């Protein structure tokens, strides 16, 4: 009984209330700006580190450090982010919106790593350390009381703010009808800014309060607050009271789970798995019809490359690749091969997200499954059966993951795939039964019947050919009847229903095919570095992958090629810089700004080739149409 009480107290006071704080912040930013902030956890982490810096390094009194961080720095940061990055994304596609906050998440981690060396241990002392009270035989520290008090106070204050004050009412009015709000004389943009300021402030409170309960660790803090997503889903990203309840329930589940469930090998990291299962269940159980968000999206699909042009460009690329295969110096292939393999994995995003309109945050999990299958079935000889197994396994798992996708839309699907990816991390990739005690699997390069491609140079040419074949195939698919249907489903699901389009089958097919491509890419990626470890497929890298894909234009195959190579070169740069993650941070930051300014990517409107041709033939050849008519302005015109 006393264990039960102790677990209950820990569930509420340590976890539940912290989740409540961050989840409420998430709800506030989402309702006011319509953008789901993936970086909520990272922002809380930054807040906690700033607090540590001020109070522990500079010796400020804790109340002063707390006040400065929570009431000044974080609100300013939130308002600034909203104004600089997010305001332009109001009508952008979901993947562009998600990508920018994903970039913020990665950027937060990178910046924090650069400033605060992660190998140094840091602790934040709890508030009023040493003071505690005993209630009914259960000991509560003052710090825990403060956590409970802060979350309850935040809930009450938010409630009063939204229902009793004029700015609060105006904030809700913006959610209701942005245009009418402006017409009454309230400035809508100011309220999104206010929402972000409050959201960042709340997540900083959560970060600071939890930092003394666990270690002050960049990844821990960032991901711990990710659990707030699950709680916010209980309130369907709208209701604050339900969000609060969801957070407490999640905290309790986690506490009881850790306390009572046997430590099994499969679920080695229960603390991580429980919130993800909770998130999955909540997303799957909650009714979807009302959760769907009718948002006006202004997407300009880029021009679809025609058959002849795609063949010409593909051949040209293979030609260049063959030349490069003979001329590049031997050291560059480790990066080049990885880059092309990543580009193949990214093609799966072009299909699923670019054409199919479904955002997946678990493509690297499929790639990992592919590498796993290649290793187990392909053996040391790299039998082609391994490739088949890689494609088959990831396609099969993809189909299973797609089942919820059939009823989930947009953000909810993205979060479900995120939960899947995180679950895979904890239960599969980091499982010694799967990856062995050394957590490493050797993956052979495929053994082709006529010509050997196992040397670095030949493997490079081989990868380029595979990439080109898939890219040409995807473009052909996009031009086909099925491709038009994919775009129609993205454009207007309800119109598709009235036309009798079988959306279930189409979505299932897209998801499965996309997973298969990712699996194939994963198997080849494994071959490129001849072994894979769980570190190759953490879910956070799936986020990076999506970020790069969107930044380089997720609807273009050229963008994926560049994105994959850039991804790979990022790690090359890192290896040569003193601060390990500086280059990465720079990359991510540039990508984020790029997406916020130009959600279609550099190859979206006009392809590189088209730009050259325009520049070269400005005098004689037919005038460039791209200046007059935006390519593929409406989806229907692209289809016709």
């Amino acid at each position, binding site marked *: 009984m006393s264990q039960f009480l102790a677990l209950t107290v820990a569930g509420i006071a340590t976890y539940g209330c912290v989740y409540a704080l961050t989840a409420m912040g998430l709800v506030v930013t989402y309702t006011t700006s319509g953008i789901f902030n993936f970086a909520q956890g990272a922002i809380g982490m930054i807040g906690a580190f700033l607090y540590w810096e001020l109070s522990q390094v500079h010796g400020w009194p804790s109340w002063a450090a707390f006040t400065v961080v929570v009431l000044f720095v974080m609100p300013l940061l939130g308002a600034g982010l909203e104004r600089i990055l997010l305001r332009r994304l109001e009508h952008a596609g979901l993947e562009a919106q998600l990508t920018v906050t994903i970039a913020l998440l990665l950027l937060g981690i990178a910046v924090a790593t650069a400033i605060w060396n992660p190998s140094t241990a840091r602790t934040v002392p709890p508030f009023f350390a040493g003071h505690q009270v005993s209630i009914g035989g259960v000991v509560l520290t003052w710090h825990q009381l403060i956590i409970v008090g802060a979350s309850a106070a935040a809930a009450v204050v938010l409630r009063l703010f939204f*229902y009793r004050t*004029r700015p609060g*009412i*105006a904030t*809700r*009015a913006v*959610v*209701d*009808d942005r*245009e*009418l*709000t*402006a*017409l*009454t*004389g*309230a*400035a*809508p943009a100011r309220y999104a800014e206010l929402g972000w300021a409050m959201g960042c402030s709340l997540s900083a409170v959560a970060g600071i309060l939890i930092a003394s309960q666990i270690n002050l660790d960049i990844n821990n803090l960032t991901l711990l607050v990710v659990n707030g997503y699950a709680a916010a889903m209980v309130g369907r990203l709208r209701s604050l009271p339900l969000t609060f309840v969801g957070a407490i329930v999640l905290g309790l589940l986690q506490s009881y789970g850790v306390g009572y469930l046997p430590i099994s090998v499969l679920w080695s990291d229960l603390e991580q798995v429980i919130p993800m299962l909770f998130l999955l269940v909540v997303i799957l159980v909650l009714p979807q019809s009302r959760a769907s968000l009718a948002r006006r999206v202004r997407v300009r699909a880029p021009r679809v490359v025609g058959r002849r042009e795609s063949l010409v460009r593909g051949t040209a690329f293979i030609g260049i690749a063959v030349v490069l295969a003979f001329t590049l110096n031997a050291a560059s292939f480790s990066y080049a091969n990885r880059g092309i393999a990543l580009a193949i994995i990214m093609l799966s995003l072009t299909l699923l997200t670019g054409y199919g309109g479904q955002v997946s945050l678990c493509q690297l999990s499929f790639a990992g499954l592919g590498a796993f299958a290649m290793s187990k079935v392909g053996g040391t000889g790299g039998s082609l059966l391994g490739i088949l197994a890689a494609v088959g396994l990831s396609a099969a798992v993809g189909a299973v993951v797609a089942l919820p996708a059939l009823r989930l839309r947009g953000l909810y699907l993205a979060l479900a795939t995120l939960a899947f990816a995180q679950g895979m991390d904890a239960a599969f990739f980091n499982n010694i039964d799967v990856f062995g005690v050394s957590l490493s699997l050797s993956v052979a390069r495929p053994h082709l019947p006529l010509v050997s491609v196992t040397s670095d140079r030949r493997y490079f040419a081989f990868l380029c050919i595979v990439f080109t074949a898939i890219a040409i195939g995807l473009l052909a698919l996009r031009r086909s009847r099925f491709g038009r249907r994919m775009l129609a489903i993205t454009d207007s699901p309800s119109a598709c229903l009235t036309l009798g389009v079988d959306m279930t089958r189409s979505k299932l097919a897209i998801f499965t095919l996309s997973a298969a491509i990712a699996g194939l890419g994963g198997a080849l990626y494994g071959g490129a570095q001849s072994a894979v470890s769980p570190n190759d497929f953490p879910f956070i890298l799936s986020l990076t992958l999506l970020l790069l894909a969107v930044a380089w234009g997720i609807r273009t195959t050229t963008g994926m090629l560049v994105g994959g190579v850039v991804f790979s070169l990022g790690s090359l740069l890192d290896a040569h810089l003193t601060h390990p993650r500086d280059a990465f941070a720079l990359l991510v930051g540039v990508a984020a700004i790029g997406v916020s300014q130009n959600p279609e990517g550099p190859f979206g409107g006009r392809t590189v080739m088209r730009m050259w041709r325009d520049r070269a033939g400005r005098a004689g050849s037919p005038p460039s149409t791209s200046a007059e008519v935006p390519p593929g302005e409406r989806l229907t015109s692209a289809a016709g």
Partner: protein
Amino acid sequence: MTAATEPGADRVVEAPPALRLIGIRAAYERVEVLHDVELSVRAGQVFALLGPNGAGKSTTLRVVSGRMRPTAGRVLVAGNDVTGTSPEKLARQGVCSVPEGRGVFPNLTVAENLRMWTYRGGLRRSDVEEVTYARFPRLADRRRQLAGTLSGGEQQMLAMSRALSTKPTLLLLDEISMGLAPLIVAELYELVASIAAEGFAILVVEQFAHTALQVADRAAVMTQGRIDMEGTPAEIGPAVGDLYLGSIRAEGSTTE
């Protein structure tokens, strides 16, 4: 009201009109939808802008309320050039715009909606509530109810309460009769007339000419982004049907 109808022509010199549009052009992307629109509404006047679907009436209102920036031309409110001013600034300066079919916040209560009206500036919550509840006692009974759950007529009353309580210099009404029973429409237009009697300028956009012409002092018919004809309701009334059906006749009448 009749007093305002007749002397319309000889009061021109007194003060700048509440609204004046000079050579307004506006475009969606590359498609120009307003071609050189000229319009002038004086204080105390009800100006009915009529026309068929897609004529550019609502776009004209979007330009006036600041929701859309014209590609050419100027918007003058009470003599001041306000071209390109943001809608919220215009609203605070006294341009009250009730957009088509949604003049209220459905997920806010009646009382909260009224509180939003106070953004007009210089208004207290109690003033707005007093004026509104005195005029529409039914809304007082429902002050805690979500506006989205009110009947269509009640919602339109709530929307009109903004015009009533914020004392705008210029009131823009877009298709307020949309989807409402004829009896309620008549009631609404009585309200419009009484607001005009207090000296505000009102620009009414309507597809159904008959109702609007009953309260208007002045009217214009718009087709295909141009004003085809302007005049008193008596002049406009008989021509409206033909103008709606085709602009051939309209060009004849304007070039006369």
